[in-house]
C-alpha cells in the first residue's frame, strides 16, 4: 500500500494549433501524498494550470492532446479511463476550484442546485436530500444564513462568498484530492487570507490532499507542505516548503523568491526576473531558463540537466549542481524575510 494519492509520471501535453504544436507540458513528474498540500508555482504560461486540468482531463480536445505519461490516482491510471469512468472520478474523488469565482458559477442556476448536482450524480441522493446537504456545505464553508443563501443565484453573492460556494461544490462529495487553480488570485487580499484559512481548516478536518496552483509565494508558505516549481512546461525544482524557501537550488527559484515584495525594501525598485519565458511552439533544447539566467554556461544551451537529488525529497534540474560547475553565491538572503524572523 502506498501513501501516495496521486503520481504524475512523465506527463506530456501539447496543444495542436494552426501555428504548430505548443508543448505546454514537457515531461512532468511529481506526486502528492495522502493529506498533503502541494503547491505548484511558476510564472504565467509555465504549465501550472495545464498540469492541474490534465489531471481532471478538462483540457479541451482538440486542440489538447496527451502525448505521453501516466496520471496514477488512487491506484488507477486516469489516462486509461473512458469518458464515463472519468466522470465518476471528477467531482467525486477529485474536486476542483478555479481562479475566477465571478465567472465560474452558472449565472442562471441557484447556488444550491449547483452544489446539489454533483451529490445527485455521485452519491445517488434525491433532490431534497441533496439540497439539505447543500445547506450543510454552505454552512461548512462559512456562509451565514445558508438556508436562504442556498436558493440564491451567484449574482447575489460577493466574490469571496462565490469562492466559498465553489469550495462547497468541490468538497460536496468529500473528495480525496482537491485541486485549487489560483483560488485567491481574483480576490481581495483580506478575502484571500480567509479562503486560504478555510482551505487549511477543511484539509485538517477531512484529511483532503490539496494541489494548489499559485504564483503567490505567500499563499504557498501559508498552506503547502511541499512545493513544485515549474518553468516552461518542466519541473525545475521540487522539495519541501523548507527546502524551497530556505535552501533553494535553482536560479529561477532564487529569482522567484527575490521577486516577492518586502516591507523592509522601502525606496528600492521591485526585483524582477528579466526577460520572458520561451516560446513553447519551439522550446529550447537545453535548459529553458538559460537566456534569463545570470549563471548560464555553454552546456545549458543544448542540454537539459538531469535531476540532482539534494535530499530524497528535494530535487533540482540545474547544471550548477554538476561537480565541475563553478561555485556560485546564492544571491538572496537564504529564506528571505522569514529567515530573519526565525
Amino acid at each position, binding site marked *: 500500500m502506498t501513501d501516495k494519492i496521486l503520481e504524475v509520471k512523465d506527463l506530456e501535453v501539447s496543444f495542436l494549433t494552426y501555428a504548430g504544436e505548443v508543448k505546454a507540458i514537457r515531461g512532468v513528474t511529481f506526486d502528492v501524498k495522502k493529506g498533503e498540500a502541494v503547491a505548484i508555482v511558476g510564472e504565467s504560461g509555465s504549465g501550472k494550470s495545464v498540469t492541474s486540468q490534465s489531471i*481532471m482531463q*478538462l483540457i479541451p480536445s482538440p486542440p489538447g492532446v496527451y502525448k505521453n505519461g501516466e496520471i496514477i490516482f488512487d491506484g488507477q491510471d486516469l489516462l486509461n479511463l473512458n*469518458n*464515463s469512468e*472519468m*466522470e*465518476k*472520478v*471528477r*467531482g*467525486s474523488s477529485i*474536486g*476542483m476550484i*478555479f481562479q*475566477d469565482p465571478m*465567472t*465560474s*458559477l*452558472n*449565472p*442562471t*442556476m*441557484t447556488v444550491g442546485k*449547483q452544489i446539489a*448536482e*454533483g451529490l445527485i*450524480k*455521485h452519491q445517488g441522493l434525491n433532490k431534497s436530500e441533496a439540497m439539505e446537504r447543500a445547506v450543510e456545505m454552505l454552512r461548512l464553508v462559512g456562509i451565514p444564513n445558508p438556508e436562504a443563501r442556498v436558493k440564491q*443565484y451567484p*449574482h447575489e453573492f460577493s466574490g469571496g462568498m462565490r469562492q466559498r460556494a*465553489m469550495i462547497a*461544490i*468541490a468538497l460536496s462529495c468529500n473528495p480525496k484530492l482537491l485541486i485549487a487553480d489560483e483560488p485567491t488570485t481574483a480576490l481581495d487580499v483580506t478575502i484571500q487570507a480567509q479562503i486560504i484559512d478555510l482551505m487549511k481548516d477543511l484539509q485538517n478536518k477531512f484529511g483532503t490532499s490539496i494541489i494548489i496552483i499559485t504564483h503567490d509565494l505567500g499563499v504557498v508558505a501559508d498552506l503547502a507542505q511541499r512545493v513544485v516549481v515549474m518553468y516552461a512546461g518542466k519541473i525545475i525544482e521540487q522539495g519541501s516548503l523548507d527546502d524551497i524557501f530556505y535552501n533553494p537550488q535553482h536560479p529561477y527559484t532564487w529569482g522567484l523568491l527575490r521577486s516577492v515584495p518586502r516591507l523592509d525594501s522601502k525606496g528600492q525598485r521591485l526585483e524582477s526576473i528579466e526577460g520572458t519565458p520561451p516560446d513553447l511552439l519551439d522550446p529550447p533544447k537545453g535548459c529553458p531558463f538559460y537566456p534569463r539566467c545570470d549563471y548560464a554556461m555553454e552546456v545549458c544551451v543544448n542540454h537539459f540537466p538531469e535531476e540532482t537529488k539534494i535530499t530524497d525529497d528535494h530535487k533540482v534540474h540545474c547544471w550548477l549542481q554538476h561537480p565541475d560547475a563553478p561555485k556560485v553565491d546564492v544571491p538572496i538572503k537564504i529564506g528571505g524575510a522569514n529567515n530573519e524572523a526565525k
Partner: protein
Amino acid sequence: MLKFILRRLGMLVVTLWVIVTLTFFLMHAIPGDPFSKEGRMPEATKENLMKYYGLDKSLPEQYVSYLIKLTKFDLGPSYFSKTQSVNDIIANNFPVSARLGIQALTIAVMFGVALGTVAALKHNSALDYTAMVIAVLGVSVPNIVLAPLLINVFSVKLGWFPIARWGTFAHTVLPATALGVQAMAVIARLMRSNMLEVLGQDYIRTARAKGLSQFAVVWRHTIRNAIMPVITILGPLTAALLTGTFVVEQIFAIPGMGKYFVKSVNNRDYPVILGTTIFYSAVLVTANFLVDVAYGLIDPRIKVGVRGE
C-alpha cells in the same frame, strides 16, 4: 408584476396611437384616392361615395372620427370588399394566418435550436459545416423560390402533400415549411454562435469538473444560457409569421391576412391599411412583452418590474 403589466399596457396604447397617427397621415399623403382605379366614374357618383365614407371632410376631421371609432374597436368598413368590414377581414383571415404562423414558428424554433446546438457541439466538423450550409441556404433562398420548389418536389413529383389551398393538416405542411425555413436558419446561426460562446465559459468547465455527463452539461448549463438572444428575436419573428405573409399565402392560395397588407395599399383602402397596421403592431408589441416576461423567467439576473419598485 401587476404594475409592470399595467405600465406595459399603457405603453402599448401610446405606441399604437403613434403608429395610427403616422400611418394615417402617411397613407393620405400617397397620391390618388380609393376610387381612382375604378376607371371613369361620373363625378356625382364619386362625390356621393366620398361623402358616404366621410372622405369629403378635412383630414383632421377624418382623423378624429377615426380615433373615436377606434376606441370602440371599430376599424371601419373596407371600401373594396363591400360585404366585409375590417373587423370581419381580421376575424376571418387571421386564424388561418395565425395557424400557419404558429406551425412555421414551431418548425423554426425546434429545428433552428437543434441545428445550432448540434453545429456548436460538433464545432468545425462535417456536421457543423452541413448545418451551416443549410442555414446559409435558408437565409439566402427567398420563399418565393423555395415555395414553388417544395410544391414541385413534394406535391407534383412525390405526391405527398396537396399542391395548394387550405383545409386539412396536410395542406399546412408545405406552406409552414416555406414560411419557417428562413426563420429557422436565422435561429440556427444565432444559436450556434451563442452556444460556442457559452461553451467557452468558466462555469461550463466547473460543470465538467463536477463530473456531469456531456448531456447534463449541455442541457442544464449551456442551452439555457445560450438561448437568450433567440428569445429576443422571437418577438418580431412571431409578429411577422403570425400575421401572415403575402408571398407564401399567394403561392399556396391560402385565405390568410397577408394579401390585405399589400392590396389595401394598392387600392388606397384606407381603413384596411390602418386596421392591418394596427393589428400587426398590437401583435408585435404583445409578443415583445411576452419576450420580456420570458427573460425574467430564464435569467434570474433580469428582474421584471418598474424601476424603483
